[in-house]
């Protein structure tokens, strides 16, 4: 049985936040709906009121302010891909958005929905994690700003309150001297392999890697940076051997963070291979 609900489409942020405060848990936000439609179809949506935020003009923007880029949560994956500020200032996010679904999904799915849905396989998340993105949550009469990694409690669970909306996502531009990579494991439906992905950013200073940031999707209980491997690479002159060592360290850290599971057997080599490819790309080391 399909879920039943009333539907409302506020035309301003103020109106949206008021409705969310009044209804609390009885309301649910819908942006593009690409994730939510599944819940509705399966009758799993519990809210009595669906609040469609796609006509709230304050939530749709891409802005550059000095060294920072900020995005409205309604920015679609297609808009990210065709945005100069993103392709120039955060190509890792552009590539992640480009890997989402198909043209039809990218035209509708939003970055806000991708973040809040909290699927471990969400493609923009590892990119936002390496960018060090901050997420602004607003409710009637207040707001708070959290690093993206602090949003998540567990797969599909976040700290976001029913009264809150994601209203802005910000990060520093990473153009000068930074290189980046985003790689996603080809999806093989028959094997039901989680859609693993990896985002890497690196800043070189001469021949040395000044800073490297790595995040791998679908591999840890909540999104995070792979700090051990990052520390291994920091300050080194990258070589095939160091990349090999760092990729192993990422796989090791994944197992430490998530424990050994039935999926560890295939995930471990998959993660290791994926990270290795991404590191080779950003550090320009060919094997």
């Amino acid at each position, binding site marked *: 049985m399909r879920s039943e609900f009333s*539907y*409302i489409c506020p035309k301003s942020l103020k109106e949206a936040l008021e409705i969310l405060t009044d209804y609390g848990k009885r309301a649910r936000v819908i942006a593009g*709906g690409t994730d939510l*439609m599944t819940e*509705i179809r399966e009758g799993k949506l519990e809210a009595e009121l*669906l609040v469609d935020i796609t006509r709230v003009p304050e939530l749709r923007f891409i802005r550059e302010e000095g060294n920072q880029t900020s995005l409205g949560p309604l920015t679609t994956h297609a808009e990210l891909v065709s945005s100069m500020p993103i392709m120039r200032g955060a190509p890792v996010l552009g590539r992640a958005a480009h890997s989402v679904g198909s*043209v039809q999904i990218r035209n509708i799915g939003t970055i806000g929905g991708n973040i809040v849905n909290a699927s471990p396989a969400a493609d923009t998340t590892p990119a936002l994690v390496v960018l060090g993105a901050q997420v602004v949550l607003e409710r009637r009469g207040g707001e708070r700003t959290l690093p993206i990694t602090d949003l998540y409690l567990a797969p599909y669970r976040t700290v976001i309150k029913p009264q809150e909306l994601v209203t802005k996502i910000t990060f520093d531009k990473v153009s000068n001297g930074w290189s980046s990579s985003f790689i996603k494991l080809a999806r093989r439906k028959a094997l039901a392999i989680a859609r693993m992905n990896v985002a890497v950013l690196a800043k070189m200073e001469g021949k040395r890697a000044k800073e490297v940031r790595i995040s791998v999707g679908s591999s840890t209980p909540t999104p995070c940076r792979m700090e051990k491997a990052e520390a291994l690479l920091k300050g080194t002159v990258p070589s095939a051997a160091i990349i090999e060592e760092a990729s192993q360290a990422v796989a090791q850290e994944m197992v430490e963070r998530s424990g050994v599971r039935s999926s560890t057997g295939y995930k471990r080599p998959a993660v290791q291979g994926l990270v290795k490819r991404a590191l080779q790309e950003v550090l320009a080391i060919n094997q």
Partner: protein
Amino acid sequence: MPVQKIRVRFRMNGQEHEQEIPSNITLLELIRDELGLTGTKEGCEIGECGACTVLLDGKPVYACLILAPKVDGREVITIEGIGEEGKLHPLQEAFLTHGAVQCGFCTPGMLLSAKALLDKNSHPSREEIEEAISGNLCRCTGYLQIVNAIEAIRSGEKE
């Protein structure tokens, strides 16, 4: 107070519509069941096959994943809205002459994805054509004929 039934006004295929609809139906159900336009196909219903592709404000989307109340104030183009009565759209001609239609189930969606591409890029490369139709599955043709047909339009080839 919001209600379970929603009144929506939208343009479909050049015509204004005003309709009272249940809040929880999809755009696909609005098109097929409420308006009786069956050219838009119902396949997987989970955003995997592309048979339900329509243009929403000119962009290809999966009608099975759009909540119908969202069309209020917007413009929808379905396969019935391309070409004219008794005269095929050039893309439809090209699909026929290039053998890009076999069972035909994917065709309406393919045509709309192709139209959206050509509307914004009149000279797409083969790669761009392949990318534009990658969200539309075809179980019959192996895609080659479809890409050829779209490419023929691009280069203005007439047969």
